[in-house]
Every structure is written in C-alpha cells, then in structure tokens.
C-alpha cells in the first residue's frame, strides 16, 4: 500500500550552525547604516543543506508523484524537455536590457508565441507580460477601462461576473476599481441570459466568464451572450483557465470575446512550481490592441525588436516582458503538439473527464448537480454523503491522500454544496482514472470515523488549520518566541 516518505526534518534554523564570524566595519560606508550585527541565519555546510531539501521534497506531492486532478488547475504532466530547454544559458542568462542584436532568438520566440496564441484563441493580438492568470485578469480590466475611457465612456464602473466564477475574477475587477456584480447561474449551471440582460446597462464595463465554466459546462448560449453584452456597449472577457477543453475545437475569438487570458501553466503544460511562477498572456480584439502593455515585439525585415512607441498603451503590468522561462516552455510544448496534438489534448481531456464522471455517477455515491454533459472537468457534490453519514468533501479529499492520490479541488465552485471538482487532464491514463474512480467509491463506503481522522499515510496527520489562524506563527522568530513563552 502507498505511503509517503516521512522525515522529522527540523527547520533549517534548528540545524547546528557553525559560528558566525564577527563583522568588521567596511570602509566607505557610514557605520550607522552598516549592518554590523550578523543576520540571524545559520551557517550550514552544503551536505546538510542538500539533505534538508531532499527530505522536504520527498514530503511533497507533485504531478510526477501521481494524478493531481485539481479542478480548474489543469495539473497535467510537464514534459522534461521543456524544463531542460528553459535552462539553456542562451535563454536563461540574458539581461532584459541587452541590445536587440544579441537577443534575436528570444525575441523571435516571443513573437512566434504571440502568433501561436493568436491562432489558438482567434484573437487579434497578444501580450505575454502578465505573470499569472489573475495578473492577466487585472490587465484585462485595465484594458477594459482604457477602452471605455478612450471612447469617453466614463460611466462604466460595473463588471458582471457569474457566481460560478473563480475568486480571482471579482478580486481582479475590484482591484482595478470596478464594482463587481455577481449574477446567479440558472438551473443548468450556466449563465442566466435573461438575468444577464437585465443586469447589463450603460454602466456595465465588462462581463467576465470562463467557457466551459467552472462546472465544466460549455456555455452554449455564448453567441447570444456575446451579442447582448456587445449591444450594451460592454466588453466580453474570457477567463482562459479552462481552455484545455476546447483547443482546436472552438476559439474564444470566434465566440465573440474581446479579451482573453490564458494560463500557460495550465493549458500549455508549464509546471505550477509549487505555486508559480505562472504566465497569463492576454489576447485582445483589433480595437483593443493599441492599449496593450509596452513594449510590443515587432518584426521588421526578419529582425525583431521592441516597440515602445504606443501612446495609448496602458504602460506596464510587470517590470519586464513576462516570465520568460514559462513562455519558453509553452512555446516548446505548442511546437511539440502542433495543431493535431493540441486538438487531441482537448479531445482526451474531455473524454477522460466524461469517463470518470459517468463511472462515478453510476456508482450512485456522489451527485452531479446541473447539466450532465461536461467538458474537461466536472463537479460532484457530497451533499448526500454529508446528510446521510456526515461525510464531508474535505474528508473524502483527505482520505484520497492515503491512496497516493491527490484530492480534487474542494468547496469550489461555491454554488455546489460539498463540491469535489475533478479535472483529470489528458495526461492521465485510463488505469489511473480507474484507480481514482475506485478509490472514490471505496471511500464513500468507508467508516465515517476512519474518514474523519484521515489521512494516515502522509508525513503528518490531518492538519489543524484553525490552530494556525489562532496562533499566528509565521516565522522562525515567532516560533522561538512561542517556545520561550511555554
């Protein structure tokens, strides 16, 4: 049976440190601004440093460990070749202000990647600057404002968002200074078009959705939605987190979206890095292009260069040109996949999700609220299990870890009670899907007590998250204080 590695690995600060040398003042800097008391970090020889992180790594689950069906996150396999290429010094060791003549390769890569994303989404132009999806959303909101302001349409302060939306959508809109109006979904789990129409007005700046939405349901009224949003003079924003469902099958540009963000760390197989770095390129329609961040990359007579001469640009959203290594990995990935591989990606991602969905629903342990047909992910409810046996989504999630399987996203989207949001992705095999299905079924029948105390096979037992909030120990210094108080 599966079991995680476990090491009682001390904090790095708890390891024996060689004595810190005394500091002598450095000539040329006034003493009062010199740091003469050494920084309180230990001095440890390399062998122990290596072991420390070796031990920590083995207590961490990644896609290379096993299936990681976090809904909405598209945790797919990260090809090793992309990692290798991104480390080549001809890419990684470039200064952002190097003379254009010395960075033609990387500029070409960026230029071509923009073109590829244009083709994949059906948009008019792309910028690669945003560092993640949410960052792209923020840029999208800035572009929205720039667009309306450019039209002297200064009253558009509302951004409408369905209640199935990811938390970053309302957060991004509101940080950009918009009012967020959340509208409930209809009984199918899709946009309530009537309600949308009612909500739209000359105050509406934008309608933000993802399609398929976070339930995995394709918004099949999308053309009507686009029409009424545009009729109201608002823009339609596409949260591309779910693009993995429709590659080579349909394009947001063709659906009428004006602004699109993609998550390269989801759809295009770049790793999630334990929480980043990601990349959230933004694509726009022709009218919005002039507002995109500078610099733009242009090609003149087979030479590439940055163009800063864009008077209507919103300026910058990130210090330089984006998370380059992530871009390189996505570029390599798209080249490897080609039109055929990308289409296959979505075909199998959707097949895998529907296969799991059917088998699990057939087992009758879990419900599938809303419309049945799903794309690359689906959201189960454990509501019945909760009512009947007091088994909650979190319990299922924890117990799955004991099987060596990562849990789905839980309690999201908010409109599904006791939600388990499952996105297997196309890189999982049928065998692994079957194992996951079996585990879910088995767990639903297990003893409640067993589930409540799960997991058991992880390096530590169930974590007390409440304790963490009540006793904010956020640094080594906090911990030392806490200890000395005891």
């Amino acid at each position: 049976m599966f079991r995680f590695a476990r090491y009682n690995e001390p904090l790095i600060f708890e390891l024996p440190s060689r004595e810190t040398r005394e500091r002598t003042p450095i000539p040329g800097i006034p003493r009062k601004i010199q740091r003469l008391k050494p920084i309180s970090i230990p001095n440890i020889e390399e062998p122990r440093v290596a072991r420390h992180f070796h031990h920590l790594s083995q207590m961490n689950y990644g896609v290379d460990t096993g299936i990681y069906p976090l809904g909405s996150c598209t945790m797919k396999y990260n090809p090793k070749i992309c990692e290798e290429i991104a480390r080549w010094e001809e890419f990684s060791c470039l200064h952002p202000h190097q003379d254009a003549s010395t960075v033609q390769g990387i500029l070409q890569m960026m230029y071509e990647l923009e073109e590829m994303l244009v083709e994949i989404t059906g948009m008019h132009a792309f910028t690669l600057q945003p560092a993640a999806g949410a960052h792209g959303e923020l840029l999208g909101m800035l572009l929205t404002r720039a667009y309306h302001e450019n039209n002297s349409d200064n009253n558009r302060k509302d951004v409408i968002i369905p209640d199935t939306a990811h938390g970053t959508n309302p957060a991004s809109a509101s940080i950009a200074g918009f009012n967020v109006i959340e509208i409930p979904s209809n009984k199918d789990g899709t946009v309530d078009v009537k309600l949308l129409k009612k909500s739209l007005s000359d105050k509406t700046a934008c309608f933000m959705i993802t399609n398929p939405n976070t339930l995995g349901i394709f918004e099949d009224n999308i053309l009507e939605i686009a029409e009424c949003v545009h009729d109201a003079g608002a823009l339609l924003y596409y949260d591309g987190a779910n693009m993995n469902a429709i590659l080579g099958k349909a394009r947001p540009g063709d659906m009428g979206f004006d602004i699109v963000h993609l998550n390269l760390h989801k759809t295009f197989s770049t790793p999630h890095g334990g929480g980043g770095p990601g990349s959230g390129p933004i694509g726009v329609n022709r009218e919005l292009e002039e507002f995109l961040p500078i610099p733009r990359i242009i090609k003149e007579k087979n030479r590439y260069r940055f163009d800063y001469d864009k008077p209507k640009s919103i300026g910058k959203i990130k210090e330089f040109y984006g998370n380059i290594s992530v871009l390189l990995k996505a570029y390599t990935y798209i080249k490897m996949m080609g039109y055929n591989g990308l289409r296959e990606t979505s075909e199998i991602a959707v097949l895998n999700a529907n296969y799991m969905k059917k088998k699990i629903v057939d087992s009758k342990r879990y419900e599938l609220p809303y419309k049945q047909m799903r794309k690359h992910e689906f959201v189960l409810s454990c509501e019945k299990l909760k009512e009947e046996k007091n088994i909650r989504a979190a319990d299922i999630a924890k117990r799955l870890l004991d099987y060596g399987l990562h849990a789905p996203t839980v309690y999201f989207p908010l409109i599904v009670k006791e939600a388990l949001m499952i996105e297997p992705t196309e890189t999982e095999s049928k065998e692994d899907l079957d194992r996951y299905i079996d585990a879910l079924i088995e767990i639903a029948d297990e003893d409640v007590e067993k589930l409540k105390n799960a997991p058991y096979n992880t390096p530590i037992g169930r974590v007390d998250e409440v304790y963490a909030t009540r006793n904010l120990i956020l640094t080594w210094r906090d911990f030392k204080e806490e200890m000395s108080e005891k």
Partner: protein
Amino acid sequence: MPGFIPNVSWKNDMLKSLGLSSIDELFSDIPEKIRIDKLNLPKGLSQQEVERELSFLADKNISCKKLLSFLGGGVKPHYIPAIVKSIISRSEFYTAYTPYQPEASQGFLQAMFEYQSMIAELTGMEVANASMYDAATSLGEAALMSTRITHEKCFLIPENISWERKSVLHNYVKGTGIEVKEIRYNRETGGIDLDDLKKNLDDTVSGVYLENPNFFGIIEEEIYEIQELIEDRKTLFVVGIDPISLGILKPPGEYNADIVIGEGRALGNPMDFGGSSLGIFACKKKYIRQMPGRIIGLTKDINGNRAFCMTLQTREQHIRRGKATSNICTNNGLNALAALVYITWLGSDGFYDISRRNFENGQKLMEILLDSGRFERIFTGIHFNEFVLRYKGDVSKFNTLLLEKGIHSGLPLEAYFPELKKTLLFGVTEVYGEDDFNRLYSAIMEVS
C-alpha cells in the same frame, strides 16, 4: 517515440463505455457556428526535432556568459550555486501547485515557512509572505495596502525609480483613486531630496516609498532622518530593497519600515531576460491582515506533531473574492524556493561576503571607469553595485563599439531622465573578476 496523452490508445474502449461512437459527440454542445476543424499551426514535432529548432533560436542569443555585461537597472548576473538548480529541479517541488492539501505538501509548506523566516531575518521585518510576482507588482500592492491601512490616498515615491516600476505602480493604483506623487532626488547626492519630501509629507499621505539603494545605485545615508520624518505620522514607510545589499546594509526593520518590498531574482534565480522574478513582500505583524499574497503558518496535526499550512486565507481571493486584499493566486513559489536554498547555502557569513563583494566590485568598477578618463561622476552619494556616470563623448557610438568587442556597456538613462544627459547606469556583481575589469578597461581605451 512516446507522446504525452496515454488514452489516445484507449479512446475507443472509453468511448464505448460512455455509449458514444465518436469524440465529436463529446463536443456537440459547442454551437456548430463556432466549431473549428483545425488550427492553422504546423503539425507537432518530436522532441528531437523541437530541441533542434530551439537550439537554432538559442544560437541567435548571446548569453551573458559570453557577453561581458555591465548593464545596470536592477537585473544582473549573479552566481547561482549548483545546489539551487538541483533542488528546484526536484520534480516533487516543481510539478506541485498551491498546497491546498497540507498533508501532501509539507515539503513545500515548510520550505515556504523557512523562506518567510529568511526574508524576515534579511529585512529585519516581522513577517513576509510566500512571494509576489516581482518588485514592481509588490510596490503596487504596497501602495494599495497603505491605503487600506491608513485610508489615505496619496502615495509618495521618488521620481527616480525605474520607469517600468513606476508604470506598474500607476496601473495598480489607478482604479482606486490613489494619487502617486513624486519626490525629487537630490541633484547632488543622487539620494532623496529631503526638503522636497518634507514639503509633500502631509496628512493625506498613505505611504512614502523609498528605495535603498536607489535606482541610481545610491545608498540612502539619511535614512534615519527620513524615518524620523515619517515615524509619528499614520503614514506608512515603504522601503524597496535589493536583498543582496542587506548583508552589509542596515535592514529596513531597523529604521522602522512598515512595509518592505524588493526584487528577489538575485537570490538564486537567473536573469532570464527579466523573467524569473520574485516579489519580496514583508511588513510589520500588525498589518498582516492587510497583506496581499499567500502566508504559511506553523501549526500542529491531529496528533500534535508540528505541521505547516496556508493561513489567513480569508484575506485571499478564493475566499474573500471581490473583497480580497489582492487578486494574486498563482505566485512565484518556485523562485522563492530558489531564494531559500540560495540564502541557506550562503548562510549568514556567505551572505555577508557576497554582499560585501558586490559593494567592493561596485567601487572597483567605478574607479576603473573614472581611471579611463572618459567618464565623470555626477552624484556624490555612496553607491552599492550600480552607479551612474556621464560619458564624455557620444554614448551611443561608445556602446556600439564596445558591443563589437563583446562587452555590453551600461544602460543609457537619458531617455528616462532627460536631465541626465549622456549618462550610463552601470552594474556589477560578485561574478566579475580582475580580468573582466581589465578587459573592460582595455576595450574602453581602444574604442574612445
């Protein structure tokens, strides 16, 4: 050769078990009008082919291992110990995501707790988060945070921060009605103009941002005087740092900064053409609930064992949605891990040495450039590892000629600071040796 999509081979079985006869049926909910047949992209390449193509691209770049670069502007080539690369290449780390299930993510969680602790020690602050995108977005978030805390809407910054950073800041605060006001730099020292700061520091000010060392490389000598100006106000003191300098310079915690931001790339991450950034964000503990970003806390498990998990999540977008302290979700975790390994590897002594070497090389490089007789100083302030000099001839011709010799000159500042005619911003780090300086010197003598 293998692909990445196993079930291509089991497609038919699986379709059958779904009662379907073709994949297309799975896409029947997409309106026909928008269904497409084929993307206009080339066919997929094998790994061998794609590697070859990418190597052609690589050959069109000149890396800073081949090009001797003295470009300043914040980014510079630092030494990255092999252990950093080896650890961030552990796939347990890089193929994981946000640690939503702490029991399966103790490794990364503990590492991020350690990272927060390291940043707290480096900066002398009480708490740090688990990373932001980069320094510029951290600055934007700091401005927003200052307003959340003080409810005031005027944010002061030095006029001489990089235009990139300034632009990002403007974009972050624009929607919220925060006004960004610029404080002059002292035309003599290159540091902040204290009088101008005093003049602008009124009750509407949410925060004062200073960089130390600043964009011109100048170490702020009057930092305690500035502290005094701000201390008794509700205004927050926001300090932007280059972490490498903190081995030898007083940490902002010691001059009572409220928020510290900075670019952490230099801590074990490659220049990456400006990618591989790491937004450092630290603050006083009392402001923690207004802090953006992810925070890892120490806690216990069901058996009383020490454990780590994300905490204060109610600040974050996935819980608080439109009212979150920030919209950030995916952050720059792996870069933070690299920074942690880097700092750990150096240790307190190593960090001091690196810091000192940067300072000393900074002095050495300026000497050499001045020795050449082709440059003159324009600021009297002490500098760390970057500095501004004025070239006595045609800057653009000089840079071109130097480049032909495989040396990249400094960053021309005139475009951003029209008053700084013919100036170049030079930068240097611990990786430069005597021979590099000599090569530069000879090259200058030859081209000018």
